[in-house]
């Protein structure tokens, strides 16, 4: 008698249901969870689920789906009901996957070493020679014993009779362990009481062991370990940054690394830093364009030679992708007996590599009962289900198999087991696959207790994150109390006190610099919009001119206002332009686009930002989406809310970030951006204002949030020179131009390797700015047509601002060239 919530999986026919054998009574290890779920109740579960989903969005947990029209950064989909695994069953699985890791590791060692298995006929030579993932330059390279596999992932499925089968092995850069960790954090929070009461084996010891294993792997003290990612567009980029931060490694892309003197170095803003270990998420053939795929932009030229020289270690070893194919599966039982003297504990799903004549014949005779896949994944081919082919297609497909048998592998289709999934108020049965992980500690192997459960999207049988499936956490329910060690709160680990934080790779400096600029840009846009929006509908003809001048301060290249010189835009046109700037995501200079850019750049440096900052960036991303049916009248409040978030962001930038190099670049970006638009706004004042334009002064004070300062000094009298004093010359006003330039001078001279000429250029600009004595200037007052010497000063000031407007972007370019550009240039292949 259970869970009225659960819809029995009748429509799955014979599939094994993880929760219940008869659809009525839960299996013993599920009973407690089902009681808890019922006690919590459907409504409360729904509430917690909503909370978890929000947290996923706010934490920016994403999984990029290449073909997704929504593009990169799709929110990770996770289910709140964990898959439960009983202790005894886990012991069985654990022994099986550890044995498999030992076996595959020995297989790699042989194939990249003496190749005795080939000569002895234990492994088909053709499967080695035809495999594009066999990286010949790595053969015979001396690596530490048993170090080909640092981590192995094994995909498991359960057949109707309750047996576990291996569906696939991930041998080169297994993904998903970071998502498993994140799932654990979220799901254990949704079901905290059950989690605490149930002796769930913790994940943290596994990750601690991973960090220790990589430290040892380096064979030197205080090694520098980097995580090499293909970059933010990769499907699992979120995980790369998550793991890098969790384990304390530097996240890098190929262009961040360079090989000098047969050693690998990280390009940082302070210079080159030696790298000892690379934990890679780049496919092995892409890792070195010099010796592997020459067209690769993701790798590091000379990396293979550095490995050969023994100057860097790579995990998993380059070349380990060789056996990441189901085609090796038919040979594992024999290899297990030969290499380990043991029976294979966990069977692979029945597999035929068509490169063997008898296997090809069998497959051709049983096409209806198998799924055919590429033997070499790099060939890229969708699985073909024999039963789904029409008769005419079958003959053609059979010819294809006969023509290139080495290229194909066929597998029996397993009727996957089902597990309960929370789905709009009830529990539904969905097919699942369990991805497990084994780690090489250097002195043995350990398994991650649990893993990443992938859930079929609907009732179909294909389980694939690329096809938009969900994920689940897997809880191993232990039969005794468990170690509750947490990486986030390690207890007995001695630490060395250090003041120096992580090094700053050039590409990171580049990104935080632009994060600073875009955050400031968004604020400027929002402030100008908030000054215009409430006024635009009420605007008299005269005020409209001011608003249009204020709008022109945005320097919008994609403005929708008519460009005709003969007539001024109408207030309706300005209103339309406001709507466009506030809502149009496709317009690059709109507010939502700028917010999304902050989110994008924030994503690339995620592992450098505090949790609060990541959260805030998530909220900024959310605020870029305007709710349906929002009225024009709602805009000012929305803009204010957005400004609050941006202020929180700049507050954190000031108060929550160490004054390291990263901060220097971020703040330099912000000051520079503010100086650029401030200069543009000040020029509006130095071109003499006509009387009807004087309300522009009020707007500019408001945009600079300096109305109060002004009023405290000058009451309500608006005078252009007084406004100039507040916004330009007053060094105590953090929104004045003087403040920006003097800070840029201070910040820049703190940068390592700064260019004296550029420092001097900024100093000169600051001195020039200070050389203007506003008291000596004369501003043409409305009505009076004075042409005095003071006016001359005003036009000199105007010229100075114009020149500053040219200087600042080029100064920014120089900074880019000095610190970032070598992270942006890719090596070019020649002679190939």
């Amino acid at each position, binding site marked *: 008698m259970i869970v009225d919530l659960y819809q029995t999986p009748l429509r799955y026919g014979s599939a094994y249901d993880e929760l219940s054998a008869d659809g009525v009574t839960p299996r013993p290890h599920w009973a407690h969870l089902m009681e808890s779920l019922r006690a919590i109740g459907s409504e409360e579960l729904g509430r917690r689920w909503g909370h978890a989903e929000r947290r996923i969005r706010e934490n920016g947990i994403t999984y990029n789906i290449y073909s997704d029209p929504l593009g990169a950064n799709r929110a990770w989909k996770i289910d709140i009901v964990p898959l439960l695994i009983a202790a005894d069953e886990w012991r069985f699985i654990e022994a099986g996957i550890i044995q498999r890791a030992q076996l595959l590791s020995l297989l790699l060692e042989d194939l990249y070493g003496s*190749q005795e298995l*080939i*000569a*002895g*006929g234990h492994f088909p*030579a*053709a499967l080695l*020679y*035809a495999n*594009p993932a066999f990286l*010949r*330059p790595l*053969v*015979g390279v001396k690596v530490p014993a048993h170090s080909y596999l640092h981590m192995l992932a094994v995909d498991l499925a359960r057949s109707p009779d309750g047996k576990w089968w291996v569906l696939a092995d991930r041998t080169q850069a297994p993904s998903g362990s970071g998502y498993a960790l994140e799932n654990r954090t979220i799901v254990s929070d949704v079901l905290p009481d059950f989690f605490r009461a149930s002796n769930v084996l913790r994940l943290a010891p596994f990750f601690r062991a991973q960090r220790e294993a990589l430290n040892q792997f380096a064979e030197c003290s205080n090694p520098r370990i980097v995580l090499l990612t293909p970059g933010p567009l990769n499907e699992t980029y979120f995980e790369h940054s998550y793991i890098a931060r969790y384990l304390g490694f530097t996240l890098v892309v190929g262009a961040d690394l*360079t*090989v*000098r*003197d*047969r050693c690998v170095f990280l390009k940082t803003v302070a210079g080159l830093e030696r790298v000892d270990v690379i934990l890679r998420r780049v496919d092995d053939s892409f890792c070195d*364009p*010099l*010796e592997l795929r*020459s067209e690769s932009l993701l790798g590091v*030229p*000379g990396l293979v*030679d550095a490995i*050969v*020289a023994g100057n860097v270690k790579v995990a998993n070893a380059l070349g380990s992708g060789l056996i990441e194919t189901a085609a090796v599966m038919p040979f594992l039982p024999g290899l297990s007996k030969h290499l380990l003297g043991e029976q294979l504990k966990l069977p692979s799903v029945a597999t035929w590599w068509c490169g063997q004549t008898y296997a090809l014949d069998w497959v051709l005779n049983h096409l209806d009962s198998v799924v055919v896949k590429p033997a070499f994944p790099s060939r890229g081919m969708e699985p073909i289900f024999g039963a789904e082919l029409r008769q005419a297609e079958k003959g053609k497909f059979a010819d294809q198999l006969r*023509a*290139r048998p*080495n290229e194909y592998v066929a597998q029996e289709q397993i009727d996957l087991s089902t597990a309960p999934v929370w789905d709009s108020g009830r529990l539904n049965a969905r097919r699942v696959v369990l991805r497990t992980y084994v780690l090489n500690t250097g002195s043995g192997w350990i398994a991650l207790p649990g893993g990443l459960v992938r859930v079929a999207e609907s009732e179909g049988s294909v389980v694939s994150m690329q096809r938009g499936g969900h994920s689940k956490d897997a809880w191993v329910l232990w039969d005794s109390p468990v170690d509750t060690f947490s990486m986030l709160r390690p207890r007995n680990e001695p630490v060395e006190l250090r003041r120096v934080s992580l090094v700053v790779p050039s590409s990171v400096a580049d990104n935080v610099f632009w994060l600073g600029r875009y955050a400031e840009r968004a604020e400027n846009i929002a402030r100008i919009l908030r000054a215009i929006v409430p006024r635009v509908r009420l605007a008299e003809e005269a005020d409209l001119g001011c608003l249009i001048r204020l709008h022109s301060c945005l320097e919008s290249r994609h403005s929708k206002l008519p460009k005709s010189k003969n007539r001024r835009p109408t207030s309706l046109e300005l209103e339309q332009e406001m709507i466009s700037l506030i809502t149009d995501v496709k317009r690059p200079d709109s507010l939502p686009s700028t917010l999304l850019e902050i989110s994008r750049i924030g994503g690339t440096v995620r592992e450098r930002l505090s949790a609060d900052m990541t959260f805030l960036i998530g909220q900024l991303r959310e605020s870029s989406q305007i709710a349906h049916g929002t009225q024009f009248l709602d805009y000012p409040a929305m803009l204010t809310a957005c400004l609050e978030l941006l202020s929180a962001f700049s507050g954190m930038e000031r108060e929550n970030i160490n004054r390291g190099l990263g901060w220097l670049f971020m703040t330099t970006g912000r000051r520079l951006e503010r100086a650029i638009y401030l200069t543009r706004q000040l020029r509006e004042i130095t071109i003499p204002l006509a009387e009807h334009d004087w309300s522009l002064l009020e707007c500019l004070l408001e945009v600079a949030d300096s109305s109060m300062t002004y009023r405290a000094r000058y009451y309500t009298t608006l005078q252009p020179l007084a406004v100039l004093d507040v916004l330009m010359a007053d060094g105590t006003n953090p929104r004045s131009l003087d403040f920006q330039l003097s800070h840029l001078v201070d910040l820049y001279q703190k940068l390592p390797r700064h260019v004296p000429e550029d420092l001097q250029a900024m100093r000169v600009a600051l001195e020039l700015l200070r050389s203007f004595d506003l008291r000596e200037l004369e501003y043409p007052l409305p009505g009076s047509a004075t042409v005095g010497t003071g006016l001359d000063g005003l036009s000199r000031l105007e010229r100075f601002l114009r020149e500053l407007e040219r200087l600042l972007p080029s100064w920014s370019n120089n900074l880019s060239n000095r610190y970032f550009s*070598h992270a942006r*240039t890719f*090596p*070019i*292949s*020649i*002679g*190939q």
Partner: protein
Amino acid sequence: MIYKIVHRTTYKYKYPVSVANHVACLKPRSLLHQELAQSELRIQPPPATRTERVDYFGNLLCFFSVQEPHKELVVEARSEVVMQGNATPWPKNAIPWEEAARSLPGDHSPAGLEAYQFGFESPRIRMRPEFASYALESFTPERPMPEALLDLTARIHKDFRFDAKVTNVRTPTEEVFRERRGVCQDFAHLQIACLRSLNLAARYVSGYLRTYPPPGRPRLVGADASHAWVSAYCPGIGWLDMDPTNNVVPSNGHVTLAWGRDYSDVSPLRGLILGGGAHSLKVAVDMEPLDV
């Protein structure tokens, strides 16, 4: 016969290259009939690192990196090679080609495995039915393998036009086959593709070919070029070399530099550069016979 070979490669860049990593495959192999008496690799600007390595196929590679800004790179390989007798002599009779194809997969002897690895697709070479059917006109049933090989070599020479203008190092073999023209590298790739499509083992040989000046004219220094031809494995005999570009069996005039599955395994000088902008390449080869 002794040859003095100078192979000079010059890269000129529009802008300075800040860092360059290169691999040179320019040192002739030592073989039964070919002895490497002397060899040296001169590199300008002087490289910061330089290491030699024997690759998977037994070729001698030189890895070097230039870490100072440079607008010109000159790599000059100078070697002295002594040719003694001929490569594997071509017997008239040997096993039928089908038997060669059949026996390869089961031959686990070192020589058999060494040969078998050249029977598969490689980065530049695909196995295709159109290559197989072209080859089958020469590989008639039960025909002894050497005879069939020579026939295919002659047909490629006859059916394809030497034309240096239509192809480049990246032209796919399929296109060469369609267009019926190309250069030595293309013809070698094509013949290998034909042989592998019949499940025979064939490898790509890079090297030099002695050229003869027109009668009465002096030998032009630097006018020679690097060359490429094919070697096929015939069980029981060994590797047999053939040159489809000239329809000859290589002998004393062909100096072997290196071999691999296709050009990509043995390109003479490749590299990755940072910066540089547009570049130009000049290659000059001089092969001077020193008669003793």
